[in-house]
């Protein structure tokens, strides 16, 4: 179960003791194959939280699942509210500065039987900066906050693009790759999230842009037919599909426009399988 390669620094600032994983049986979960990043008791009755991520935290769109269950009865709770607050603390020339990153606050998913949210880490953990993630929860019986420090790595093939708008050099955009998470030959769902930076503490989603994709095998110089350009679905998400005619390294080139204004051209996601 413990596939985590990174070291998890765990600080529990609830009024209760830190957890011991063996104490309560974790109920059967569709999240079993994911990485458990945090397992903790709460100050609410005998409730426990298990926090899962699909893979080690990386620069890009990371899904986060929170399982809430009674450690005695095993019963799940679905009426809690969570607020994720990622924060990077950077040391630069002796001064400390902080910034957050785009998040999708967790909502209960029946299918997963857990709360599903996401965070878009916009830079890796390094000597100069560390990430802390606050997970605040509340319900009608109490509230509290858990925290962990994910060690965010940059993937070999980056899953997040950032650039300044071609028509407005003051505006910074972030484009995260959401899908395909398991690329394969054939038709793949293609989904991206687009965000902008308003301030160090605000990274809102951007909807209604016009996105065009052009997959290409750079080594062979060919593309693929019948791709569907991603369209804005709200919440910063854009969905389309991309076709891979063979396995190997692909570049999915993006062109992003806001009406007649070019935002970016020439960036790509490298996808290999």
């Amino acid at each position: 179960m413990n596939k985590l390669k990174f070291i998890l620094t765990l600080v529990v600032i609830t009024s209760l003791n830190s957890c011991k994983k063996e104490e309560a049986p974790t109920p059967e979960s569709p999240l079993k194959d994911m990485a458990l990043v945090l397992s903790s008791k709460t100050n609410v009755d005998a409730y426990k939280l298990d926090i899962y991520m699909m893979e080690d935290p990386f620069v890009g769109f990371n899904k986060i699942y929170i399982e809430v269950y009674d450690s005695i009865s095993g019963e799940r709770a679905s009426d809690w509210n969570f607020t994720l607050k990622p924060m990077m603390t950077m040391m630069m020339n002796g001064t400390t500065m902080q910034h957050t990153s785009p998040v999708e606050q967790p909502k209960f998913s029946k299918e997963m039987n857990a709360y599903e949210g996401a965070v878009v880490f916009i830079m890796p953990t390094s000597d100069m900066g560390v990430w802390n993630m606050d997970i605040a929860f509340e319900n009608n019986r109490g509230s509290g906050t858990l925290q962990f420090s994910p060690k965010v790595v940059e993937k070999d093939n980056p899953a997040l693009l950032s650039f300044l708008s071609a028509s407005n050099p003051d505006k910074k955009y972030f484009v995260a790759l959401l899908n395909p998470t398991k690329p394969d030959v054939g038709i793949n769902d293609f989904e991206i999230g687009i965000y902008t930076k308003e301030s160090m503490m605000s990274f809102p989603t951007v909807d209604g842009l016009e996105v065009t994709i052009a997959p290409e095998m750079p080594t062979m110089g060919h593309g693929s037919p019948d791709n569907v350009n991603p369209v804005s679905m709200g919440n910063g998400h854009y969905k389309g599909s991309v076709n891979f005619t063979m396995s190997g390294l692909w570049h999915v080139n993006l062109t992003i426009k806001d009406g007649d204004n070019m935002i970016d051209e020439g960036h790509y996601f490298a996808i290999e399988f």
Partner: protein
Amino acid sequence: MKTVVSFCLLWLLPLYMWAQPKAAITAPPDSTKTYQLNEIVVSNESIDNTLNKEDNTNTTASVGAYLSKIGGVDVVQRGAYAAEPVYRGMAGERAPVTINNMKIFSACTDKMDPVSSYVSTNNIKSISISKDAQNTKMTNSTAGTITLHTKTPVFRQVGSWHGQLGAGFKSVNNEINTQYSLGYGNKKFAFRTNATFRKANNYKSGGGSTVNFSQYQKNNLAISGSYLMDDNTLLTAEYIFDLAQNVGYPALPMDVSAAKGNIYSLAMVQYYEHSEVEAKLYGSNIFHQMDDSQREVIMHMDMPGWSNTYGAYVNWTRDFSPNVQWNASLDYYLSQSRAEMTMYPNNEIPMYMLTWPDVQKNDVALSIANTLSWGDKWEVSNTARIELGVNQITDPFGIKQLEAIGYVGISGNVLVLPFISSHWNVNVTEKSKINFSIKYSQRQASVTEGFGYYLFNAQDNYDYIGNPYLKPEEALAVETGYGSRLKTIEWHLQVFSYYMPQYILGEYRPEYSPMTIGATGVKFYVNLPWAMLSGFEGNALWQLTPNLALGTRFQYSYGVDNDGVALPLIPPLKNKLTLKYTKKDWGIGVQLQSVTTQNNVRYSFGETKTPGYNLLNAQAHYSISLGKSSLTFNVEAANILDTFYIDHLNFNSIPGPGRSVNFSALFSLN
């Protein structure tokens, strides 16, 4: 293995039980009669090859050279090895090749290994072309099924051994050919084996420049055994092993490191007073490994291919009277074709695709034929055949690949293919004959046409993608021939025409980008509304004196599609004029091979007008008889004038070989 054996017993059992009640047997097994023949027999064209009988004893020639002697047959050369037969301008599934009626499919996506490449010349007894109505053992095809019949074991009244030992040399590519055959037969049991080894360097074209990547090396071994269980039951087992290595293909961007074939069969023939039942179980496993390590390429690729076929047929023949014969056969095979391409870029993960997506074909066919005759004058034979083919892509990767190019939800297809024909022979006088035939046929698409994935065609520089929605290609064919045999002259002329609705050909799709680096674009196989192919072939032999003969053989095809554009790979008018002087033990001959310019070309297939050429050849042979054995020498001077020429059918316009002096010696013990 176990399943094969028990399956085989199941086949044999009912036949054997059926045999019990019939006691009286008169028909001797056919197998004892014809096996010494070394002659190429062609259905319908009996006088075609008499002129070349001596050439055909030269078993160091290539299979392509053998095939080229048949009226209407030409070959596509992609190098010096493995010529692909073309019958009346039609190849591939339009004129499929079988070995002893066994369905075999090539394992190369680039047509480097036509089925005929898996047999060696010293194992070929005859070659027949089943065009229309003489045979139920064939496939639904446009032009006809070309069948290579191998030599079978010979029974003898008194047990004895026989064999041949041969060697040959060709100066144009320093080819050496060594071969043997060995057989034993008595009244009950007969056995035969033969093997050939050939090795050649690059050949030189006319004028002396070397054609790089035209070398090859080949080993072929065949073993067969027959057993007469009782006077009316013949069992025959046969095995062929073929291994070609280091084969260069100057017309293509790749060569072959190894092409391996294993072909095997077990057959039983049961003879009754007026009928015969043949049942056969067979299989073939072909592996093909292409190689570009000798070529200058941006990236090296691995391109292996596999073709496995397992089949069985039962064929029944009955003479109801001397004038009425009926024939029926039930034929099944399962074939599996897979080809992969992996590329290895520097500092990057390999790139991979399935060029043949593991296509499994289940095919069953029922055919019925009859031959009726009235006196000596009229003979008519009719054939009806129905074939059901079920294609299935068995690798999910292949299904997903097709989805990526727009074939969503396709994992195979089902085809029902009818065939019906009628063939008339009329002996107008004792010395002249007319034939007429009409047929309607549908043929299935090849794996490449139906399911191929970005297969590069070096001739037109396009990548080709198959089309699982292809309709079967149809053919309505009519042909007629007239032949006469006078005192010193005999001649035959055959005229044919094929109207082919749903003709399958590649069509350019500008919206697709090619996979192959440097390719111009992508073509998809489509059904053209129709195409038309007409032509003629004929021959004449004039016996000037009892020893001196002048012969000619010519053939011509003309094909256009519904837009009037020429079909690709259609041979121009070709003529071979031969003067031959023959005595009992020796003979000499000269030959002028004339080919006209081909102006009817398909530019979109990468063809250009090909100038005609003339080649002058000479042959001599001498035999010494030494009691039960004999020694035969053949000398041939091919392309004496060292003419530089490009045959229109030479793929990618590679030049043909220049002057060559070829020797062979054959020692036979009968």
